[in-house]
């Protein structure tokens, strides 16, 4: 019995800077979740992850995260991934920092 596949995005951290990044449809990396490629097929998701893992000279810690379609693009589902799109809640650091927006 197959379970319904939850769409995914490929996410990782930038090797040099450490910041959270997402893989786009062209295979490039974006700082923004809504620019990520929303992958609706499990086999393709695995292939995209392999492609990411092959870029170890640019990124670190790639994995597939659950996501859903939103008006501006893919949106995270789990609260952990929501936090990764903006940064910590105690300071306006990370992506929510003015310089990064």
């Amino acid at each position, binding site marked *: 019995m197959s379970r319904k596949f939850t769409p995914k995005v490929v996410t990782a951290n930038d090797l040099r800077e450490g910041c959270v990044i997402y893989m786009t449809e062209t295979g490039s990396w974006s700082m923004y979740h809504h620019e990520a490629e929303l992958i609706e097929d499990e086999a393709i998701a695995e292939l995209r992850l392999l492609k990411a893992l092959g870029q*170890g*000279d640019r990124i670190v810690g790639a994995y597939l995260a659950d996501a859903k379609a939103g008006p501006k693009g893919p949106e995270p589902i789990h609260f952990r991934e929501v936090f990764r799109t903006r940064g910590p809640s105690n300071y306006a650091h*990370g992506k929510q920092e003015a310089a990064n927006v």
Partner: protein
Amino acid sequence: MYNYSDFDEAFVRTRAAQFRAQVERRLDGSLTEDEFRPLRLMNGVYLQLHAYMLRVAIPYGTLRADQMRQLAHIAETYDKGYGHFTTRQNIQFNWPKLTDLPDIIDALADVQMHAIQTSGNTIRNVTTDAFAGAAADEVADPRPVAELIRQWSTDHAEFQFLPRKFKIAITGSAEDRAVIRAHDVGLELVKRGDEIGFKVLVGGGLGRTPMLAPVIREFLPKADLLPYLEAIVSTYNLMGRRDNKYKARIKITVFENGLDTFRAAVEEEFARIRPEFSGVDQEVLAGIEAQFAPPAFKNTPVEFYEKSLAVDPLFKAWATQNLAAHKVENHAIVTVSIKEHGATPGDASADQMRLLADLADRYGYGELRISHEQNVVLPHVAKADLPAIHAELLRAGLATANVGLLSDIIACPGMDYCALATARSIPVAQEIATHFKALGLEEEIGGIKIKISGCINACGHHHVGHIGILGLDRAGVENYQITLGGDAGPLAAIGERAGPGFAYDEVVPAIERILRAYLAIRAGREETFIETFRRLGPAPFKEALYGEARDAA
């Protein structure tokens, strides 16, 4: 305080140079992440949620003023202007870039600091009482022994790949401000007649299987310490489980084999290796002890201090809460709370670090400590200087008189930073502190320890909080379990779970119900929360949390 020998200096510089080369090879693609990860972890570099994180060792929580200034410099130059003091007396920088990390490690080496063995399955930074060397109630200063253990355990060839990480804590006082019963090995300096030795505890720890360490040796002569420790760690290295990460800590080894079996194995190994310790370690220890000689304490009178207490209520409130008894009558131990209501527990800005370093230089013989409760301690201050220190702290917003009170909360970084976390801890701590300040109830409630962890690994020590809060992920939603009756001191206890968990926005009201129940049922103002809990048990607090509906269910 300890100054690096030529050996220490060469070792740390060599490791810094090796790390620089390792980072270069990672960046040019010569090393894969799988190859690089163990190397970066050996130097305290983690990958967290939003960035890399660097954990720097503060050996036994002791810092010189110039070292604190260097931490401020690093925070400002390479990070976002602050650092986070941890429950293991270390400091973490939350935003370093991999490309800057070799320079940061060099900057640390410039002031005799490093990040070696702050990660990995090795013997970690030895922690101790933040009041060590100053406390009125201690048998002896535990720091020379902590330094001896640091030298013995650093790069110890046999102990670089233990089944799991290994944490040693040592206290010189029966009051135990180092939570020794929650460590893999706990040491308490004790006296038998005129002889100083150690009570040795083994197999404590928090995490998913919290256990309080039993005593393996009631009295260990001082000269036997290193061979005995080596016997314990060797026995664990062989007997400890490597098949299951969650059963690999020494607490499980001791529990599964039984203390008697474990002790017999340790004693056998100890008897075997004891003759190999020729006494060189004791010569080294004597040299270290000389470096920890107390400063020449000033002989200033206390009249001005006493007069200030009488006329300045703000100063008096601070002195009542934030001072502890010093072994020298005209001195005091100052705990500077870096937990102003609403601040992040453990965080200090570069400016705050610099001010504290300056105060240490001007009034505190150049010494600072980081407490496991995530505050900064000036261990030796002449009472005559306290009003001046208080005035400066007031100007800098560092005079919060809340040490030991409700808002003096221990909290791990939680899911605001940590990749392992299952929920946030920091905003829960912030909201509890500001909520009770707004209610004006903090002083009325009095002494209480609230401790918050953002996952089962329990870096926030929630099991030993009088009230513990554990953040979990329940089907994709943050959920918080409350434990009651834990204690980290000499009457150490693991708190018991009160019942079903609470949603994020239900936690503060739940804590308020517990504390209002306490205020209603305590025997008097003198009876603290934990004393009321010990007298009446959890029932009235569970009732306050869940009401009668739960009993009927």
